[in-house]
């Protein structure tokens, strides 16, 4: 949890960012914590949309474009 908050705030060093990005590749709970914390931030800022897979569809589109380009 602390790591998710520090990532979104940029409150970490370059070395810590490297480690965190590596963890994010494999740690589904950390990815969810980052996404949940961002959802809360967006909610506080007035962006109150249901959690309906929007970002997953963007990422799927990006991955599709990347694999198509290879």
């Amino acid at each position, binding site marked *: 949890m602390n790591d998710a*908050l520090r990532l979104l705030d940029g409150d970490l060093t*370059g070395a810590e960012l490297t480690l965190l990005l590596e963890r994010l590749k494999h740690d589904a709970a950390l990815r969810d914590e980052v996404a949940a914390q961002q959802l809360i931030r967006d909610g506080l800022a007035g962006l109150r949309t249901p959690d309906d897979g929007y970002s*997953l569809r963007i990422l799927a*589109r*990006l991955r599709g474009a990347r694999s198509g380009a290879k």
Partner: protein
Amino acid sequence: MSEPQLAGGIDAALVLRAQQGEMVAFEVLVVKYQRRVAATIRRLVHDDRIAEELTQEAFLSVFVALPGFKPDGEFAAWLFTIARNAARSYLRSAQNRQDDRPVQWLDEAGDSDRFGVAPSPEEQAMAHQLFERIDAEVAALPELQRRALLMREIDGLDYKAIAAALEQPVNTVKSHIFRAREAIANRARPLLAPTRDRRW
């Protein structure tokens, strides 16, 4: 912490990592900005489905153009410019069409995978409940925590400006905001569990 914090901020650092081939760094940027980008586009096109398509297009354009982006530039400003341009381009093409049929990509098979479907009443109710819980938790925070958090999230102030406004040391402000976020997340977590598979 003895090492210096990220020079140029977290966005610049994530852009740089993405330029070096770290896809996960770009994914963080998508998670961070997708709702704001979608809201910006939705305000221009007034259609949820088209807004979602254009949001995807905007992130795709940014990703493709990323190698040419200077990491010392302002990533968010660049992203929102591309998003607004995508919306304006769509509106121009809609104006130029002879009729008001939807554009081709909205007729393609498999749209529900690509764009999802409108949130059900249950999903909307769950979201409503979640944001009510968040509001209640914000209201229950100690005053300094609440003021610091709202200055950060609503007013968009940086820590230094909040510290000046509250006449508190920067580290104290950081600590207040951190604790406020943890408290809110702890209360919101049970309501976030049912939608776990729809997040990153």
